[in-house]
């Protein structure tokens, strides 16, 4: 079976700072991978490389068997034109730490925008699908609310519905609950749990150890731009083998 995500020695640097020093990992279809690690460990940069929001400096990254953002000729990589990258991104949903809902659009308009403009779905069909998705994330009474009228948790749930509206094969979550008030974290995690149970392939950068342990199929601990440890979350997050993992967990738990 083709892995949904395959990373091979992925390197990324910002100027002289090397943020990713060779990340190699695979995510199988239907798997939920949780990436944990201290800030500055490169986990957010890595997840952004998966949909080419960041360019990589060396290595290879495939999503569902296709290189992301590049075309290979011989052993050289050439960056794809904007239109090609955009087409590939329609298969990869992303949820951001700070929601990034379109501020001039209502919740419903946020969700139907890309299906109508990118996938050319007829409007009434897009609206019906969007309402179903908003119902599914528990926002059936907020179709016409603007993002500024919604709580953080509600905004993040709209953002999840917006990503799902493109019917992606893979969902990326970049610290989806880090910007939320503590009492709003649960509602977002519940939606993500439901999504995992429906069989969606997910890569989740998170600090929620409990979520990673319960929902994750694989846990990856990153530090200093490398994967320190990976394995069953109930092992990695309960009895870590590596000293660095243990030190991190003792701080966050």
């Amino acid at each position, binding site marked *: 079976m083709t892995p949904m995500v395959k990373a091979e020695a992925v390197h990324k640097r910002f100027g002289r700072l090397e943020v990713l020093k060779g990340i190699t990992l695979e995510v199988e279809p239907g798997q939920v991978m949780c990436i944990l690690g201290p800030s500055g460990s490169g986990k957010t940069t890595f997840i952004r490389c998966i*949909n080419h*929001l960041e360019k990589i400096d060396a290595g290879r990254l495939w999503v569902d068997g296709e290189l992301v953002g590049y075309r290979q000729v011989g052993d050289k990589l050439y960056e794809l034109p*904007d*239109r090609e990258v*955009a*087409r*590939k*991104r*329609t298969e*990869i*949903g*992303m949820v*951001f730490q*700070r929601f*990034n*809902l*379109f*501020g*001039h*659009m*209502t919740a419903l308009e946020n969700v139907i*925008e*890309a299906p109508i*403009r*990118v*996938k050319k779905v007829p409007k009434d069909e897009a609206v019906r699908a969007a309402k179903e998705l908003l119902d599914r994330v528990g926002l059936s009474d907020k179709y016409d609310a*603007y*993002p*500024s009228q919604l709580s953080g948790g509600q905004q993040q749930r709209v*953002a999840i519905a*917006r*990503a799902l509206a*493109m019917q992606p094969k893979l969902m990326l979550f970049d610290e989806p609950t880090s910007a939320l008030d503590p009492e709003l974290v649960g509602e977002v995690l519940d939606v993500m749990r439901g999504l995992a149970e429906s069989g969606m392939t997910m890569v989740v950068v998170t600090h929620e150890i409990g979520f990673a342990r319960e929902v994750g199929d694989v846990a990856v601990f990153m530090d200093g731009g490398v994967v320190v440890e990976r394995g069953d979350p109930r092992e990695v997050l309960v009895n870590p083998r590596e000293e660095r993992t243990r030190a991190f967990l003792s701080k966050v738990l």
Partner: protein
Amino acid sequence: MATNTNFEWSVIGHYLTAAPILRGLVVTLELTALSMAIGIVLGVLLAVMRLSPNPLVSGLSWIYIWFFRGTPVFVQILFWNFIAALYPTIAFGLPFGGPQAAHLNLTQLITPFVAGVLALGLNEGAYMSEIVRAGILSVDEGQTEAAQSLGMTRLLTMRRIVLPQAMRVIIPPTGNETISMLKTSSLVSAIAVTELLYAAQQIYARTYQTIPLLIVASIWYLAVTTVLSIGQYYVERHFARGARASSASVLQRWWRAISDLRPLVR
């Protein structure tokens, strides 16, 4: 002060709605509208080009802005007026004696009015591009990233997500530019376009009623500026969609304040 007889209020009253003045006013409005239309379209184009990752594209935009912002608009007006002296005709076709597809006679094509619109519009494009660029930069980068992660291309993202939100920042200075353009358009009186100021000048050159006619022109400039300011309020309100703060016009807020006072007066 206002009772100084040199103002000749009766003369002002007479010429305020005189046919030549009204015709001049219409030309001034046409000049302003056309130049601003060119300026805004060009400004958006130049701003998007300036922010392009392609160095050739952004460089072209930079050179355009450098040139048109760096030379006086008055010189540009004169230049366009005399361009026919430089190139009397322009031919479009294949080079080196190939067949000609079109043949333009610039002497006939570039009337003083066209020269004025070109000069004001091309110059305005340079200023508008900086206003539009500021607006685009004011939109959080997360908006672009979210749009791109949904598979929207760079152009679609600009048109549907970034520019509509940039409008809130773009409109107030654009209102400024429009009002400024209304007044700057009086410069084309120098190339004998009969706009508002030139119409007034033609009359006082004959009657020597200089001050009253300048006041006539000023009254019209003020009147149009007032109308433009009101229009700006409605455009701003349209683009405030989804914004937290409600926007009431100054007049509406005065009216509310007066309404609140009324019980006290009674």
